[in-house]
């Protein structure tokens, strides 16, 4: 009998140490066309979800912000404007391909000075305790192998009173929307992936990983377990996506 711990990679069960590598393969494959695919797959709605997230950050000039799994830097760019020259934004991602795309995009747009780029694993953050005012993670948590551990790490590096915002796919309770969403995710997404990035498997993983991700209430419970207070969530687009918020006491 094996002592190996297992986890989900989409609908497949894999050993924990395997998941990170498999997720990395997915993102290496899609990094170059990540933004185009996001716009196509969500019909541009992901911009509205991120806009909603920004409203809850409460970021001000001089704040220190960590955008973990920040990918191509959508949120980091906005944070850079808000924190100004006295603040700091750390754009972090475990995947070097995604981080390179994000870094090049931000530098090409003239963002520098108050932005740092860090390649790191959300489960083992290379930052001191109590060092960030705000942490955001948009569409990244479901790819993390040990989500509880990552949440505890976020809690560790946040300053007391700092807030964590996790934007992630979730579960809709509307049966009609749920059926339409399933049909779209498992039929249209892999075809779009095949056409645009020549990779249908990665987008099949996307659809499967969304289904395996904890629902709103479960994730809220995980926030509390990790030590966050005033935990709440807001459903978006009928619950297809949810924004979870927690404050470090």
């Amino acid at each position: 009998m094996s002592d190996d711990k297992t986890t989900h990679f989409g609908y497949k069960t894999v050993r924990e140490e395997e998941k990170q590598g498999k997720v990395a393969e997915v993102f290496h494959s899609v990094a170059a066309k990540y933004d185009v695919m996001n716009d196509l797959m969500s019909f541009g709605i992901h911009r509205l979800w991120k806009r909603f997230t920004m409203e809850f950050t409460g970021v001000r000039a001089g704040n220190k912000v960590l955008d973990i799994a920040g990918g191509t830097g959508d949120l980091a760019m906005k944070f850079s404007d808000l924190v100004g020259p006295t603040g700091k934004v750390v754009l972090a991602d475990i995947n070097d391909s995604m981080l390179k795309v994000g870094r090049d995009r931000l530098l090409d747009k003239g963002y520098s000075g108050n932005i740092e780029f860090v390649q790191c694993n959300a489960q083992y953050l290379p930052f001191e305790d109590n060092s960030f005012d705000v942490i955001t993670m948009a569409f990244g948590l479901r790819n993390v192998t040990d989500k509880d551990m990552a949440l505890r790490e976020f809690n560790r590096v946040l300053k007391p009173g700092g807030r964590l915002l996790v934007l992630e796919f979730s579960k809709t309770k509307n049966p009609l929307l749920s059926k339409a969403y399933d049909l779209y995710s498992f039929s249209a997404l892999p075809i779009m992936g095949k056409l645009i990035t020549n990779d249908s498997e990665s987008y099949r993983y996307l659809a499967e990983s969304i289904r395996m991700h904890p629902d709103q209430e479960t994730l809220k419970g995980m926030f509390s377990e990790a030590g966050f207070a005033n935990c709440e969530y807001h459903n978006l687009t009928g619950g297809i996506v949810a924004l979870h918020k927690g404050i470090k006491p």
Partner: protein
Amino acid sequence: MDHTIIQAGLASAELAINKALAYDPAVKNKLAKLAPKVLAIEIIKPKLTVYVQFGEQVSLKSHHEQSDARLTGELSAFLNLASHEDKHAALMKSDIQIQGSSQLALGLADASSQLQIDWEAMIADITGPVVAHVLGNKIRGISKWIQSTTQKAKDDSVEYVRDELQLTPHKLEGESRFSAIHKLKIDTDRLEARMARLNKRLQER
């Protein structure tokens, strides 16, 4: 209402406002001076609060922790306010409640009353100055014609209802009648006071 729909509405409105302000630098500067203040516009029915954050660009949000001023009222009251040219006066007369810094709310009302978008510059960005000038002249001509026609139709319809159909009195007739009613009211009040005084005297004897 789903947050996504609200965000779509706010993003579109924000884009339109900032685009419009780009063609009226005077009002844009006035609004920029209000930075970093936040005005909450709370519509009671349907329940919706929009936060307006001032700065180089105006930002519209559905959530914000604190606001410097809050306007609360029915949607109809806000629509009515938007339709008035003098928004400052209309805001003071309206059923909209102002909490917090009234200066901020009135500052926004003043600025939006003064908004004069340079449509010609907006068209010139797309077509170039020559075409924009020709189009601008045409648009100004049409706009003048619409204004004068609307005013004439309004005057004619008032005259028709008053003089031809005789459904309403002339303004002077009305004023004279109201003045007579007012005088009668004052006389009645005096008479009432006098009666009361006489009654008191009688009771004293």
